């Protein structure tokens, strides 16, 4: 064996997330210390000024979320990271980001809850909070990495989606993925796509900050300081950005916010299918538990059991069509997760009875093990 000079680096999940943000062109990070996400802030505190960007440790989680929205309005690519209790605190301003159509990335390294819960224990208990944590009816985009490499790649993707769709994007890690170390092949500049927000065309007269100009329904976004002097508010507003209580205008804004994500579905929804075609049983998994599923699936195949995996890389908007397609062929679906069936329930409603759906739900801070999944496969076959 010789020591080779390869590009692979040993990286922690949280570190890969921070480095992915830098690859994506982050200009501004605001955060607050909380286990198990703190390493993201620590890496960026060191790296941001080196890259000419800004890092600030704000006085609390609420302020961190506020600061990244404010910074984004000046044209910056922005991010914050948190865990459990901090994610709860960020919800109001996260919703502000959605309604004010401000690109930013919010990382939640999930830990065992509720409340202070188990700070160093992993969980996937915030899947529904990610979907509906902020009040009101709103769309949301959430990505879920299963490897340290994906912590890097999906952070880049999260920035791209935020910029393209003018919306906050969630990256849902868990303590296992955030703290584990494995090899990462750091892409060269240009190797991964990096998207920047669409600005109003030069010389635009009468710019309206919330008026879409094409079928994407995503309005071009000027920056504060560009000379357009537009108004931004969390109140429901018309295309000028000024508040209204005209019910028709309020309703159509909410509709458009949903529609722009719906129309972008092909770019947003990503899943990985493994050995689906002949599968009697399909495991639907995401985050760290997808790793247990992969091990269990290989062991099951060795035993001659026809098992496949549908890995949800995008969790929100939910890959309903992909899940339904799988359900039409398989007899049973197993959804292992570190909560009491948050995604299992969504799968169940998506498959409308076309396949039996079984859950495995760990809420003790222990990962779902390959053995648990194998036992369930035996049970349902």
């Amino acid at each position: 064996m010789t020591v080779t000079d390869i590009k692979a680096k040993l990286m922690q999940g949280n570190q890969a997330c921070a480095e992915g943000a830098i690859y994506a062109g982050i200009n501004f990070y605001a955060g607050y210390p909380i286990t198990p996400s703190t390493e993201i802030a620590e890496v960026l505190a060191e790296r941001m000024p080196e890259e000419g960007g800004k890092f600030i440790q704000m006085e609390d989680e609420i302020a961190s979320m506020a600061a990244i929205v404010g910074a984004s309005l000046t044209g910056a690519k922005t991010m914050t990271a948190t865990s459990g209790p901090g994610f709860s605190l960020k919800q109001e301003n996260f919703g502000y980001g959605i309604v004010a159509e401000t690109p930013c990335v919010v990382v939640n390294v999930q830990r065992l809850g509720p409340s202070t819960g188990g700070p160093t224990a992993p969980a996937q208990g915030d899947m529904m909070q990610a979907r509906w944590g902020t009040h009101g009816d709103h769309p949301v985009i959430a990505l879920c990495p299963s490897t340290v490499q994906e912590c890097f790649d999906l952070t880049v993707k999260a920035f791209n989606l935020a910029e393209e769709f003018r919306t906050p994007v969630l990256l849902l890690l868990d303590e296992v993925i955030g703290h584990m170390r494995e090899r990462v092949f750091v892409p060269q500049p240009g190797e991964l796509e990096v998207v920047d927000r669409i600005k109003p065309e030069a010389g635009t007269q009468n710019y309206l900050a919330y008026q879409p100009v094409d079928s994407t329904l995503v309005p071009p976004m000027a920056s504060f300081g560009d000379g357009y002097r537009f108004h931004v508010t969390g109140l429901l507003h018309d295309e000028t950005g000024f508040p209204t209580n005209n019910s028709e205008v309020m309703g159509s804004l909410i509709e458009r916010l949903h529609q722009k994500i719906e129309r972008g579905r092909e770019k947003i929804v990503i899943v990985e299918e493994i050995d689906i075609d002949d599968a009697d049983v399909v495991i639907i998994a995401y985050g760290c538990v997808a790793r247990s599923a992969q091990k269990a699936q290989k062991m099951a195949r060795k035993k001659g059991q026809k098992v496949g995996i549908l890995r949800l890389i995008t969790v929100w908007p939910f890959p309903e069509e992909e899940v339904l397609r799988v359900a039409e062929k398989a007899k049973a679906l197993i959804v292992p997760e570190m909560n009491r069936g948050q995604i299992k329930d969504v799968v169940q409603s998506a498959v409308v009875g076309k396949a039996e759906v079984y859950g495995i739900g760990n809420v003790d801070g222990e990962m779902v093990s390959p053995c648990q999944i194998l036992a369930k496969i035996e049970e349902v076959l």
Partner: protein
Amino acid sequence: MDKEWEIRLGGTGGQGLITGGIILAEAAILDGKVAVQSQSYGPESRGGSSKAEVIISNDEIDYMKVKDADLLLVMSPEAAKKYKDEVKEDAIIIVDTTYVKDFEATKGKVYEVKISHLARHEAGRELVANIVALAVIVGVTNVVSRSALEQAVLSRIPKGTEELNKKAMAVGFKAIEEVLNAA
């Protein structure tokens, strides 16, 4: 080395076992292998129990947690008690007899080395017990190459401690050679 190695390093916080796990994983990657390192620790970073897990393989690693270890290092009585049964039948168990007395294995092959004592008296500081331990592990298993281990150690330690750490590795290699020769 063709097999997949599931490695567990157990001791108390402050013994540098998580750093040890990281170094081992980094060395494996330098060797062109696949490695995953994970850990668990109490909120206090010193004195509590500490566990680092590393899996090293030629293929992609799915599940990142170690169940029954192929290699176990124990550097505290608590860790010895807690982890000694969570090993494979043919596991290699390395015991730091500075702190773990009267170790009784139920399975696996045991190698006893006074790791912390050697770190303090031969290498010069107990602080480098984790590095002595890594050399012992590599001496028994060749799980990573010696050159990769050295490179990984030197890339993870504070500047100015290179000689101390190199000495620690030499102490570890020598100690395990003596144990192997005596056997």
